[in-house]
């Protein structure tokens, strides 16, 4: 504690220079009836080394995914973050800066975020990107409210948006919380038995304010049908596509098949999973959405000498100026994590990103190939998958995952958590970090599980 307070021991001197006697004199304006009568009932202070020791013990009891064969993803993906990214992002000039309100002394982060905007813009194929929202779920939610702001006046289905029925309930809940204040009605879009979007049913979404779909979808399926969606819903309904950014190394950028807004969970590019946060939400759009979009944006400008300079721009959309008429309440965002994403993209280059995407695709494909020959295991959807796919197991998914866990494997995600009727389905995730041995161990244990369940060899 002492090592954080430079003025310990100088209190009397400082108080005296103000004509005060005790620290208590600094708080005479706080009435007695709202004061704590006693010390806070908390543990005593610790030294740095004691804190580290406790942190090692507590965090050490958590099970790292990398410590065993792990096949859990479902929106967050194990990846490798290059060493230089961690080294640079902890530089104090980045780490300990606030939002760049004084551009003259914040050119570094401003330029880095302008570059990030460019990278995201190129990645998703749209002209405008902001410098991050909180995560993939809030980016999707803010995209829906943005679409309503832009299209509501001309919409035949006013205040209405359509969302894929496959969207995980936790993400759906975030969308509902963000949408309910504007009284936005969220309707769902059906899928075919093969896991692809029912394009016939999509016609009813035409005339609404927006449609939210994911590519790959929550079951890992790369759905070719999405390239026709914009033609079906028309110019006055926003097509919003949620992406896994790494996939865009090989998968067509949604901006090139008609997306008006692209959002996504940025984590797989540049950031570890970190227990679910901090992450960064990607938000990019076409120009008609620019002035009604959420979040901070950096613009390139000039200084008084005409020299190139950067600053925050289009702030009149934001809460500190527009107050209750702002496009969003967002203020603090995920700049530093977005910076990690930019650094990772710079190291990869588009070719490296293509290779990384291909490794993820191949890891998924290899896992699928091996599990498709594993006794008792059925691959639920015949499709092109990225990162993950659903399997059907004998017995319940929950019991199967417990069995795998007892045998040192994080086997995947119990799909009945999302879709209650899918009691025997597991979402199995493979990434660039998945090894052949991991897959073989999973396959062997799934075969054992099937045998225990009475599936004959």
């Amino acid at each position, binding site marked *: *504690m002492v090592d*954080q*307070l430079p*003025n310990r021991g100088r209190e009397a001197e400082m*108080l005296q220079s103000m004509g005060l006697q005790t620290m208590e004199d600094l708080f005479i304006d706080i009435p007695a*009836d709202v*004061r704590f009568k006693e*010390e*806070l*009932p908390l543990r005593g*202070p610790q030294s740095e080394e004691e*804190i580290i020791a406790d*942190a090692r013990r507590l965090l050490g*009891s958590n099970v*790292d995914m990398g*410590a065993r064969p792990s096949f859990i*993803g479902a*929106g*967050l993906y194990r990846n490798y973050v290059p060493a230089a990214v961690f080294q*640079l992002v902890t*530089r104090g000039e980045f780490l*300990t*800066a*606030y939002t760049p*309100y*004084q551009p003259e*002394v914040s*050119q*570094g982060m401003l330029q*880095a975020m302008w570059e990030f905007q460019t990278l995201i*813009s190129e990645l998703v*194929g749209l002209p405008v*990107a902001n410098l991050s929202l909180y995560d993939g779920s809030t980016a999707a939610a803010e995209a829906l409210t943005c679409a309503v702001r832009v299209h509501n006046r001309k919409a035949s289905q006013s205040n209405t948006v359509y969302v894929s029925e496959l969207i995980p309930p936790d993400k759906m809940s975030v969308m*509902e919380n963000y949408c309910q204040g504007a009284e936005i009605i969220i309707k769902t879009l059906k899928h075919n038995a093969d896991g692809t979007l029912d394009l016939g049913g999509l016609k009813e979404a035409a005339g609404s304010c927006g449609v939210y779909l994911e590519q790959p979808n929550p079951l890992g399926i790369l759905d*070719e049908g999405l390239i026709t969606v914009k033609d079906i819903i028309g110019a006055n309904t926003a097509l919003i596509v949620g992406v896994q950014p790494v996939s865009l190394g090989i*998968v*067509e950028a949604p901006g090139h098949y008609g997306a008006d807004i692209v959002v996504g969970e940025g984590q797989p590019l540049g950031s*570890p999973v970190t*227990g*679910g*946060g901090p992450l960064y939400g990607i938000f990019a759009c076409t120009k008609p959405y620019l002035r009604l979009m959420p979040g901070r944006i950096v613009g*390139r*400008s000039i*200084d*008084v000498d005409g*020299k190139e300079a*950067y600053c925050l721009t289009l702030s009149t959309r934001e809460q500190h100026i527009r107050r209750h008429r*702002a496009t969003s*309440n967002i*203020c*603090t*965002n995920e700049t*530093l994590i977005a910076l990690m994403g930019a650094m990772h993209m*710079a*190291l990869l*280059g588009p070719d490296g*990103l293509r290779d990384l995407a291909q490794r993820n695709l191949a890891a998924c494909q*290899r896992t699928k190939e091996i599990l498709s020959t594993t006794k008792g295991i059925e691959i639920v959807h015949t499709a*092109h998958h990225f990162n993950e796919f659903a399997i059907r197991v004998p017995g319940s998914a929950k019991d199967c995952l417990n069995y795998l866990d007892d045998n040192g494997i*994080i086997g995947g995600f119990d799909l009945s958590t999302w879709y209650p009727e899918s009691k025997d389905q597991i979402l199995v995730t493979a990434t660039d970090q998945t090894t052949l041995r991991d897959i073989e161990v999973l396959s062997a244990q799934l075969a054992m599980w099937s045998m225990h369940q009475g599936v004959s060899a």
Partner: protein
Amino acid sequence: MSHLFNHNGANDTGYSQPPGLTCVNEATVPSGLVRQHSARWPRLSEPEMVRHYTWLSKRNFGIDTGFYPLGSCTMKHNPRVNEVIAQLPGIADIHPHQPEHHLQGLLSIFYEMQHMLEICAGMDQVTLQPVAGAQGEFTAIRCIQEYFRQRGEDQRTKVIVPDSAHGTNPASAAMCGFEIVEIPSLADGRMDLAALAAVADETTAAMMITNPNTLGLFEADIKEASQIVHDAGGQMYYDGANFNAILGITSPGLMGFDAVHFNLHKTFSQPHGGGGPGSGPIGVKAQLAPFLPGPLAARRSPTAQESVTAVDDYWYHWHQPEHSIGKVQQWHGNAGAVIRCWAYYRRYGSGLKTMSEHAVLNANYLRHAIHREAKKEGVSHLFVDGAETDVAKHEFTLSMQPAKDALGISAMDVAKGLLDKGYMAPTVYFPLVVPECMMIEPTETESKDTLDTFAEQFVEVLQTDAETLHAAPVTTPVRRVDEVYAARNLCLRHPFEDSE
């Protein structure tokens, strides 16, 4: 200038990656989905990448660079042990959907943080899920909204905010669908109880206020305000942006509040990272607890089997509140930030009060030092206190209106002059109720010497002629940036088209 897009790099492939797994059938994407247009940014080799970002970092000002008295932002030193802990095994490579017995350490830290914040705020239940202060505000107002809906009080459609409130307050309440009722502050910047009483009625859902307020003054009438709102049937919301002033001295609970958000990136030293990540937990009284977003960390006695791997005398588990509003972030919030702030809390423990005392000591000392130096140099007529008070709390405001009237020197001119002296500028033009406002918050981690020197330099800026100040800054990487040009000539990405 170093530009990412001017590097030529090694164009053919990115940093060396291991080969992918070999498949029986080639792994492909559907033919109609094959990416047709490659993205157009260069690949940087590691030496180029390291140098580019190091160069950028040198063009950026952080707390590590120098004094950062940005009012309302609590720019305190970020202890480095927090960063070391965040890199230990057991956090980066953890998935939020792993089973509870994989996450006992994380859950125990979550529980400890919830409990600590409950005690500091005088609240009954805390959730760590909101990832920023503004999201905390939104979450708490959503809980209040559902609370009234369940009670059949749908007519409570209004949220009261003082005109000095942070912009996020009205923005967050409006996002929930509430109508905003703004009440004016008194001439001295404090809350106007009569104005509050005049608007609080059966349509009031909540009042949102921060205390100390945005002028750095403690609202001594806060209990009366709570009484007025509660008598009208509304709930009281505490904006925790200024929590650094009162830890261990008073609490929102003691003041009569029903809900509060914390900015862990302010009070508990999560580094702000140039704009984030933050963490914005909220605490609520018992009547609102069933509506919190879930899951929360909870604990019980372990079974015999569990006690073998338990981290202490308890078994930690997730708990879903009964009438939860659902989720505001898809996972469990910014766990990485919570870990860092846990390390910060452990450093102070029950001594958190000392931290707040020093924050208030430093703010008052700096205020006195600025007045002292100004008097000595004969420039004390160039500014006035933003609010009349004997003591400020963690921050204070000055109005530069006299300097503007006498010499044409604005608050922005002074701010830019301070940049030339090697400081980050204070917050300017907020709160709006103080003309030509400068809002100064030194925090507890600045030494007396730093404060004395800053006071001298501040006065030196005031002694500088207007023409020089209008031209400031001149020592920074760029000079005054044309924000109007940026808005009129929008350039939001690198124009590859032009350079090809």
